[in-house]
């Protein structure tokens, strides 16, 4: 079971390469924000899966914050883009 979780975590981490590419090349700011968001989603899943693989449920809290703060960041950006200041 642990092997499966770890493999999935590894896969999720490998997949962050795709949004990182979009982060580097995305023509608009929105593209980059979406890319960071996807990095966060995939990191969160990786942490969840890693916690399951390592058998440490205390890691789970980190994943929760990882996701929610990345979305908060997106909303901060949206506010900043709409208003020109935060």
């Amino acid at each position, binding site marked *: 079971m642990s092997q499966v979780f770890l493999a999935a975590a590894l896969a999720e981490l490998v997949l962050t390469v795709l949004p990182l590419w979009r982060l580097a*090349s995305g023509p608009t700011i929105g593209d*980059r924000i979406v890319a960071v968001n996807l990095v966060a989603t995939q990191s969160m899943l990786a942490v969840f899966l890693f916690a399951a693989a390592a058998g440490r449920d205390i890691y789970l809290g*980190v994943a929760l914050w990882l996701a929610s703060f990345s979305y908060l960041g997106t909303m901060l950006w949206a506010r900043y883009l709409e208003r020109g200041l935060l």
Partner: protein
Amino acid sequence: MPVTSPTAVPAPSRRHGAEPVFWAVDYLLLALLLTAAFLVIRLRNLNACVMALSALGLLLTVVFVVLGAPDVAHAEVVVGGVALPTLFLIAIGKARTEVAEPEQTNLEETSQSPARSSTSLRTGGTGAPDLLRHRPHAAVLSLLLLAALVVAMLAIPRGARPLPGMARHAIQVALPQWHLTEVVNEVVYGTRAFDTFGETFLLLAAVLSVVVLTRPREPRSGYVGEDVAGRQEQLEIDPHLRSGPDERQAREAEREEEGLGRGPLTTDAQPFAKPFPERGEEMTVVVRMGVRVVAVLLTTAGCFLVVQGYTPGGGFPAGAVLLGVVLLIYVAHGYHRVAAVVRPAVAETIELLGALAIIVLQSLGLLLRGSFTANWVPLAPARTLRSGGIAQAFSLGEFVVVSSGLVIVVFAVLGATRDWTSDDDSADSAGQDRTAHEGGDES
């Protein structure tokens, strides 16, 4: 099922023989981290750099988790994920006349007003190929850094290697002396409590300096928009205070640019496709309601983090989490929703009360047990909420200090305004003198 807390076991190696290949995750993360860091340096657009920085923070969090340091990961996720980008965004927003990039302005339909030239959504032709034009010395430095990181990764204690003496001492002391199953918390709030004490007051000093630096000339009761709100009254009392025409014009232009104090509170009723800058203070109703739901969840989880101090967590990350919640509400509702709490009279009092509580707590150790930061509370059994004696109380005080301190810093910086008064000494003193002896200057 009770919470399992594996850090109690000495060196619970996740790397010994039968375990799957965890090292692959390490190296993969290292590569990703380097990629993100490379982006931070090489991207030409300031906004994009900030975003790459938050991506770096996210990946760094995963690294900390994978290396078995959830405490650090907790701190990193809030500092790297929220506080840092927020402060950068505020800074860019405040200084945006300086950061406008010339190549952006000629791109389509984003150059209507100078206010937006830096917040324009087009980021110029900075594509991935541009990243590959590095200079040789940068490549050498990067390679050196890479080598250093590889060496560091190889030097990480593997499962079979003995722990350093400090770590062993902490592990030996944590459970018998403090009834704490979380060794890091024992170190932070127990063995090295004096360091944490110092750090807390260092933070307090930092908050104080930010408050001093961002304080405008006018007395204020809130952090954001106070100078605008009080300007009318101030002009009535003292018509000569803002006398220079240049200054008035500059302030007017700034206010125009920022759109403070105008427009409707809500953005719901605006017609579609009306271009920004947005004047409404709140975001749309969908965001507001969603945030209301999420805030409940996040606040409870944050409190859980501080209360349950025998697992990773405790005061610092929980305090930063609370900053996240406050920012969330601010983003969705605007300042007027948080103004009741986020104002100097309340936030600074809370912070000082937290600091006072910590001082009293630790000084009682000196009085009752003979040494500063000594435990004087009877210890509850391990893995209950009251285990750890004063460590838990210290953590709670830290939570208060950190949360209020971070909120103060962010909102003080957020509300900082530029002082358009000219730096010319003679003009400045003339302006001040005029308040003292009126009539004389009037002619």
